[in-house]
C-alpha cells in the first residue's frame, strides 16, 4: 500500500515534468533538452524567493512558475528561433538546446554553488494522512492533484481553445499555418512559455517534496521525462500523465523487489518493448505524424 503511494507520488513528478516536455516535443516535434535546466533554475528561483526574501510559498509559487515560463521563451528565442526554417532545424535545435542547458547549468553552479540546498523548514505545512499502515503527506497529495489538474487543463487548452487550435495547426504544417495568417513564431513562443512554466512547477515541487535543490537535479528526471512521453504516446496529455504514474509505480516496485541497480534497466527495458510492440505508446494517435 505504501509502495503504491510512493509510486503514484514519484509518477506525478514525472508526469508534471513530461507534460511540459511533450507540449513542445510531442506536439511541435521540437526536442528541447534545456527543459531540465529550466526545471532546476525554477526551483532555485523559488528557493531564493522563500529562503532569502521571505516571500510566502503561495506567492513564490506563481512567481517562480512565471519566471520559468519567461525563461522558456528565452530558450526558444536563443536556441531555436535563429535556426528555424533551416532544413536540419530539428537536429541543430536539439544540439543548441543542449548547449544552452549546459550554459544555464554552469550559471546555476556559479550563482548557487555545488551544495545541495533545501527550502526552509515550515515552508509548507507538515501534515500527514494515515491510511492504515501507510502514510501520505499533504504535499504529496497536492502534487498528485496538481499533476492531474495540469493534464486536464492542457488537454482542454489543446482541444478547445484558440491558442490550442493554432498550436495544432502549426504542428500539422507550419507553412500552411503561416499562409493562413497564424503567427507561427508567436505560437511556438507561447508553447514554450506554457511548457517551461509547467517544467518549472515540476522543479519547484520536486525540490519541495525531496527537500533537495541542486544544480544537477534536472539530470535525474530528464531521460525519465522522455521515456514518459514515448510511453504515453507522442503529444498525448492523458498519455503522458498515465505513463508518468506507470513509470513511477514500475520503478518503486523494481527497487523494492529487485534492488536499485535494476531501476533504470527495467524502466527503459519496458520503454524499449513499448517502442517495438506498440510504437504509438499507451494513448498516442493511431499513426505517427511526419516530422
Amino acid at each position, binding site marked *: 500500500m505504501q509502495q503504491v503511494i510512493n509510486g503514484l507520488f514519484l509518477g506525478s513528478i514525472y508526469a508534471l515534468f513530461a507534460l511540459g516536455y511533450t507540449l513542445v516535443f510531442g506536439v511541435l516535434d521540437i526536442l528541447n533538452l534545456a527543459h531540465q535546466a529550466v526545471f532546476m533554475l525554477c526551483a532555485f528561483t523559488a528557493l531564493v524567493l522563500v529562503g532569502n526574501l521571505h516571500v510566502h510559498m503561495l506567492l513564490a509559487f506563481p512567481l517562480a512558475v512565471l519566471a520559468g515560463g519567461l525563461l522558456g521563451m528565452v530558450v526558444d528565442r536563443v536556441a531555436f528561433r535563429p535556426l528555424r526554417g533551416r532544413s536540419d532545424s530539428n537536429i541543430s535545435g536539439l544540439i543548441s538546446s543542449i548547449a544552452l542547458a549546459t550554459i544555464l547549468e554552469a550559471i546555476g553552479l556559479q550563482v548557487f554553488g555545488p551544495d545541495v540546498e533545501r527550502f526552509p523548514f515550515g515552508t509548507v505545512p507538515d501534515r500527514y494522512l494515515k491510511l492504515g499502515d501507510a502514510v501520505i503527506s499533504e504535499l504529496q497529495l497536492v502534487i498528485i492533484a496538481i499533476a492531474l489538474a495540469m493534464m486536464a487543463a492542457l488537454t482542454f487548452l489543446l482541444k478547445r481553445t484558440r491558442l490550442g487550435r493554432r498550436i495544432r495547426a502549426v504542428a500539422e504544417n507550419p507553412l500552411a499555418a503561416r499562409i493562413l495568417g497564424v503567427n507561427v513564431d508567436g505560437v511556438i513562443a507561447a508553447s514554450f512559455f506554457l511548457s517551461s512554466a509547467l517544467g518549472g512547477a515540476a522543479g519547484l515541487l520536486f525540490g519541495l517534496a525531496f*527537500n533537495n535543490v541542486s544544480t544537477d537535479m534536472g539530470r535525474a528526471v530528464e531521460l525519465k521525462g522522455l521515456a514518459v512521453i514515448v510511453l504515453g504516446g507522442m503529444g498525448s496529455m492523458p498519455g503522458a500523465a498515465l505513463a508518468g504514474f506507470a513509470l513511477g509505480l514500475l520503478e*518503486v516496485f523494481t527497487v523494492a523487489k529487485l534492488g536499485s541497480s535494476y531501476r533504470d534497466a527495467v524502466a527503459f527495458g519496458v520503454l524499449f518493448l513499448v517502442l517495438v510492440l506498440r510504437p504509438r505508446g499507451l494513448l498516442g494517435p493511431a499513426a505517427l505524424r511526419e516530422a
Partner: protein
Amino acid sequence: MRFSLRCLASAVAAALAVTAAAAETVKIGAAFSLTGNAAVYGGQQKAGVQLAVDEINKSGKLPGLTLEAVIEDDATSKEQGIAVFQRFINRDKVSAIIGPTLSTTATAADPVAQAAKTPVVAVSNTAPKGITDIGDYIWRVSLTEAQVVPSALKAARAKLGFKNAAILYGNDDVFTKGGFDVMKSSLEQAGVPILEIQTFATKDRDFNAQLTSLKAKNPDFLMVSALAEQAAGIVTQARQLGWNVPIMGGNGFNSPAFIKNAGPAAEGVLVGTAWNKASSDPVNQAFIAAMKARGNDPDQFAAQAYTGVLVIADAIKQSGGKGSRDDVKNGFSKVKDLPTPLGKFSFLPSRDGDHSAAVQVVKGGKFEILQ
C-alpha cells in the same frame, strides 16, 4: 646519471642542513586547506597545530629544541598540495610534514615526501587504502572508517540493545560502498543478524521505495552509508514515512550540512567519530580549555591536528631528542600509549593510528557524544 648525482648531492646538503639546524629549531611543515572546498576543516587544523607547538615549546618536553610550525595553504587542490610539499622539503627543510587535509590531495602530495624521505603525519585523511600504502615515511593519526565503525557500533549497541539490523547504502560510489562493507562485516562480527540490505544510486533523490521495503521487515536498527547530500534526504523521508527506527550513519553524515538539511529529522541520528569530545580525560579537557581560551571551539579536526604535533614531538623524544627526518620517522614506531585528546595513542604496524572511537548523537541540532 649526472642528474641523479646532483639529486644525491642536494639530498646530502639538505640532510646536513637539517642536522645543523636541529641543534636549535625543528621545523614542522603543515599543509592544510585554508581555502577551497575543504576550507572549513583547515582553520581548525591550523589552530590545533599552533596550540600544540606553543605548548610543547613552553613545557620544555624537548630540552634544547624549539619546534617551529610552517603553515601553508594546500588550496584543496592536488597541484597546490604538491607545490607546498616541495617548498617544505627543499626551501624550509622541515623535519616532518603534517597534512594535507584531504585524502585526494594526499595521494598526490605524499609520494613527493616519500621520495625525499621526509616523514608525513596525516591528521585528517580517512581513505582506508592508498595513504599509508604510499611508503614507509607516511604515517597517519586519523582513524579510517574501517576503524571507527566497529567501535561505534559496539558503543551504540551497549546503549540501545538492538537485536537485528538493516542496511541502506549507495552502491555506485567507492566511498559509500566501502562504508557498507565495513558496516556489514562489523554487524556480522558482532553477531547482529541483517534482515535486509537495500541500495540506491548517487543521483537518486527519492528513497521512499527502499525505506518502505526496509520498514516492512521491522529491524531494530538501520545503518546508512551515504554521502552528505543524500544523508539528509534519506533520514527526512524515513521519518516522513512514520518510521522512527534508530539510524546510524557512516562518515558521510559527519557534517554540519547533514544537520542543516535534515533539520528536526536529524535528531537522534548516530554517527561514529574519532574524537570523544566529552571525554573527561585531563589531556582532553586541558586541550579544549586551551583552545577555547584562544577563542576556538575545537572540533575533531583540531584535536587530530593537535595530536599530530604531539606524536612528532614524542617521536623526537623517543629518538633521544634528535630532530632529523629519519629520527622522526624512526621515533614514530616507538610511540606507544601516548596521552592525547583522542585517548591513548599508538601506531599499528600498518603505520595507521590506533585509539578508541566514540559515538555522536544529534541533539538540539548539534552533535553530542552519546554517553
